Structure formats: C-alpha cells, structure tokens
C-alpha cells in the first residue's frame, strides 16, 4: 500500500465522529439518515465525513440504490491497525524486559541499603 493512501487512512481515522461511523458500519450497512441519527450533527456534516471516509477507501457507497447505503471496507483499516499493533508489540517486548531489569535494580538497591545499616 502506498504512503499517500495510508496518510488518507490516518487522517480519516483522526476524527472521533468518523471513528464512530466506522464502528456503526462494522455491525452492518446503513443509509445516511440512519448514520446521522445517533450524532447531533446535520446530514450535510455527516455527508462531509462520509466523503472523507470514502476517499480514504474506508467505506463504499452503492451507486444504484436510492438510499445509497454505506458499507465498511476493512482493508485500509487492517493495514493501519496491523502497523500500530506490530509497533506496539515491539514496545511490549522491550518493556517486559525493562520490568525484569527493574526488579533486578530494586533487589540491588535493597542489598545496598542493608549493607549501609
């Protein structure tokens, strides 16, 4: 996947309303009016958010049906979540070694403390 496409995905995900829309679409396709329901914002504002999501390839909208229902397109999201998750696991690994090392440091400090007394 190209960096430009990924940048669009990151930018699209940076907004809480758009994340909530994606979460809603994860449970099934929905028409714009159904999506606007839970959010206290206007239909034109929702349409704006949908355009951003569509450009990022995160959703698709049917051209034929009158209500043009929105559908979640999982592949770009999968790329981002995979990157973040792998990055997180590297730190998980590092910090679990740091935990062990901190225990070692604590034991050494205790020993030193006892010697001083």
């Amino acid at each position, binding site marked *: 996947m190209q960096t430009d496409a990924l940048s669009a995905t*990151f930018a699209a995900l940076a907004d809480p309303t758009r994340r909530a829309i994606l979460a809603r679409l*994860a449970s099934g396709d929905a028409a714009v009016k159904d999506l606007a329901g839970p959010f206290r914002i206007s239909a034109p504002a929702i349409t704006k958010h949908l355009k951003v999501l569509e450009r990022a390839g995160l959703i698709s909208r049917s051209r034929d049906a009158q209500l043009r229902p929105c559908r979640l397109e999982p592949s770009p999201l999968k790329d981002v979540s995979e990157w973040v998750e792998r*990055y997180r696991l*590297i*730190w998980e690994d590092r*910090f*679990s070694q740091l*935990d062990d090392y901190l*225990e070692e440091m604590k034991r050494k400090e205790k020993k030193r403390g006892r010697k001083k007394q």
Partner: protein
Amino acid sequence: MAVRNSNTVTVTLPSDYEIVVTRMFDAPRELVFEASLRPEHVRRWWGPRHLTMTVCEADVRVGGAYRYVLRGPEGREAGFNGVYHEITPPERIVCTQIFEPMPEHVAVVTVIFEDNDGRTKLTSTTRHASKQARDGHLQSGMEAGMRDTFDRLEELLESLAKM
C-alpha cells in the same frame, strides 16, 4: 517464576506527526528514569528479544550524543542516534532521534516519567517532521523481524464501538 504484571503498552497517534507510547511500571520513578537513560542499563532491555543490541553508547549530558544499534536474525543492522536536549531527573528526557537508514528524517523524542503512588507512568512522544516520516517510523515495525501475522481488525472495531 516471576509473576507477569498486567501493565500493557498503549500506542496512540494523536496527530499526523506523532506516535505516543505509554506504559505503567511497578518501580519508583528514579529507577525507571535511570534505567531509560544510562547506557549500562539501556543495553539490558532496549533491544526486542529477537534482536541483539550490538552498540549502546551515550554521552549522557545536554548536548551529548547517543547511538544504539540493533542486529536482526539475518545479520542486518539498524542504528539509531541523536543528541540530548534536556535531562531533568527524574521527570523528563528530550532528545533527537535519527533512524540511520533514513538520515534525512530527524524526530524529537520526549519521555515523561510520572509518579503514581510509588509506581511510574512512562509516556514517550516521538514527533516527526512530516506525516510521511511518522508513517515510515510506524512501518519500520514491520521490518523489525516480526514475522507473525496479526488479524486484529475485529479487536480494533470492538474497541471503537465502545467509545
């Protein structure tokens, strides 16, 4: 056998330029600070398990430089270097970071240590000069020798749904 604690790493992307990593440690702030700064400590934990840390040098003072090198299972090496801009024990470290395969990108790393009832919350913010560089940094995780496949989409969506 040591009991594994349940402190997990959180990674967030609060802006187009930043990556923020947070983690709680069951140790006093002074210890976590020292362990994160001094090369004699850093070499004991900074390399992920499947990588070897072949170089860990640091001139720990403001204006001083550090260099860390990791070697992967196939012998490929990746170096990191930078300069300390602020060292405020036991609260804050600010330094630059250059991933040597991408020397034109200089990131600024700010590590904050907060006391939480004898435990320590570490927050590391890496700020890149561009979104492209930030994404490249995230992507470098893919090349770090981690071969497992992850399919965490459902998990991510579940957490989104809870928001």
